[in-house]
């Protein structure tokens, strides 16, 4: 009895007998240019998006584009293609070496050479059309092509530093706004050195009763530094914030009224949060964005202590009312027999007696990795 039902005859088999045209080589099917029916996307925004590239504005913040007439669509596509190819070339010079462009073989039915005979089997044919180990070569894909993040790798957690970062971001944003550079306010800002950071923190921020904040001082120097495109792009390894001691000294001297500055303006809020993210690595969740109305609210959102890894750590740090009681002994690690002996003062005596009898040459406690050694087959 047949267990597997018969397969229906493939439709291609009937066609193959009638089709005299040989199959074209695979390399012919690879096209160097994208299809004109689909608009080309800039390659650098796809794979290599980083803080070095000019940031495209969010849709809600950028001004609406006028509608393009239909007759210009083809020209626009061509222009976009050209831009994409140029940006690809520029990018490839900086970050990687692209593989050679694919060569297109002549179609078998268009070959004029009378001696040419199409092959019927793959035996003896040269293999073409693949990249091989091109990307495995470190010269083609150097370390400089690594992703450069917008935020630092290590998040800033210290409340004093976060406060300094929010104050700095607010001051810089207000300065850009007052200078009339609103488009640059939403763009990518450069990083500064220590002197400029201190100068920004020293600027006076005044907040009126309605929450409108203004900055007074040398705003042009702040705006000019922020607008500089050529500068360190990676936050890691560059000066972003003062040390904790300096920030504490600054906080004790500074007026705290700046925390009441209103962030109701969406562009202002975006610019401040973007800068805080760049300086501290603290990302504000989307669902909390609408609740942030002032600089104080932003501080409360990001200045949260890190979550305890274990329950023991949580008890140690947060439950001082329990740990501090005189009749409560809390141990974050497992209490062993050795600990009990030590508490009773018996441990030293046991060790001494062992030493006398030459039975134990070391501490009584067994190292933690003893079992792990056994698992690995070690002695």
């Amino acid at each position, binding site marked *: 009895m047949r267990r597997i039902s018969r397969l229906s005859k493939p439709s291609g088999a009937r066609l193959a007998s009638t089709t005299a045209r040989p199959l074209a080589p695979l390399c012919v099917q690879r096209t160097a240019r994208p299809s004109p029916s689909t608009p080309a996307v800039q390659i650098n925004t796809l794979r290599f998006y980083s803080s070095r590239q000019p940031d495209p504005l969010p849709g809600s913040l950028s001004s609406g584009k006028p509608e393009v007439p239909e007759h210009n669509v083809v020209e626009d596509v061509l222009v976009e293609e050209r831009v994409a190819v140029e940006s690809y070339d520029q990018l490839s010079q900086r970050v990687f070496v692209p593989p050679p462009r694919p060569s297109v073989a002549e179609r078998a039915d268009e070959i004029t050479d009378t001696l040419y005979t199409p092959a019927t089997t793959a035996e003896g044919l040269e293999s073409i059309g693949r990249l091989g180990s091109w990307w495995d070569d470190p010269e083609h894909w150097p370390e400089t092509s690594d992703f450069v993040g917008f935020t630092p790798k290590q998040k800033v957690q210290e409340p004093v530093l976060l406060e300094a970062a929010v104050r700095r971001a607010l001051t810089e944003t207000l300065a850009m706004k007052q200078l009339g550079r609103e488009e640059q306010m939403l763009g990518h800002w450069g990083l500064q050195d220590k002197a400029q950071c201190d100068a920004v923190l020293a600027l006076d921020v005044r907040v009126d009763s309605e929450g409108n904040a203004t900055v007074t001082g040398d705003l042009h120097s702040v705006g000019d530094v922020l607008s500089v495109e050529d500068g360190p792009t990676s936050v890691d390894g560059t000066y972003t914030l003062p040390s904790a001691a300096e920030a504490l000294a600054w906080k004790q001297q500074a007026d705290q009224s700046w925390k009441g500055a209103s962030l109701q303006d969406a562009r202002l809020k975006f610019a401040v949060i973007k800068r805080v993210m760049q300086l501290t690595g603290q990302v504000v969740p989307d669902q909390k964005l609408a609740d942030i109305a002032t600089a104080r609210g932003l501080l409360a959102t990001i200045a949260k202590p890190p979550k305890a890894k274990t*329950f*023991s750590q949580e*008890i140690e740090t947060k439950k001082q009312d*329990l740990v501090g*009681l*005189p*009749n409560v002994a809390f141990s974050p690690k*497992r*209490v062993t027999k050795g600990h009990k002996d030590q508490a009773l003062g018996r441990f030293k005596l046991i060790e001494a007696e062992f030493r006398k009898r030459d039975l134990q040459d070391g501490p009584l406690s067994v190292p933690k990795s003893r079992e792990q050694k056994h698992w690995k087959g070690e002695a």
Partner: protein
Amino acid sequence: MTIRALEKVSVGQNGIGAFILQCKRLDIHYCDHSGSSRGMNAFIKTHLSKFAQTHPAIEFAVSPRPRKHPVMIGHYINGRQKAICVANMEPSQILKKAELLRDASGDKVKRVNKPVTSINESVRGVWSPYHGNGMAV
């Protein structure tokens, strides 16, 4: 002459004159990660602080016991111990177990099959064949 034992002036009873809590120490063990310790961890967070404050005569030793069920061990002044596993219990249930350990005497649990128990001597005394006037057979 019959031999008479020395008469007791008083019988020591805990609570008459002074009360000494029999439970001297309570070991509280939990696990950081296991689900059976969820109630115990909540008990430590919410109830233990107040419970320890109200019982200064008891020493509380809180420590983790990784990969094991949570347990409470009462140590008593008679040298005995009493352990209760509180896996998967609610914090309120664990509080009741802690009160049970606090109130326990530490004695081995014995079956009580008499309606009345007393520490007082028998009024009639203990009969002895060697004492008294004797009996004519």
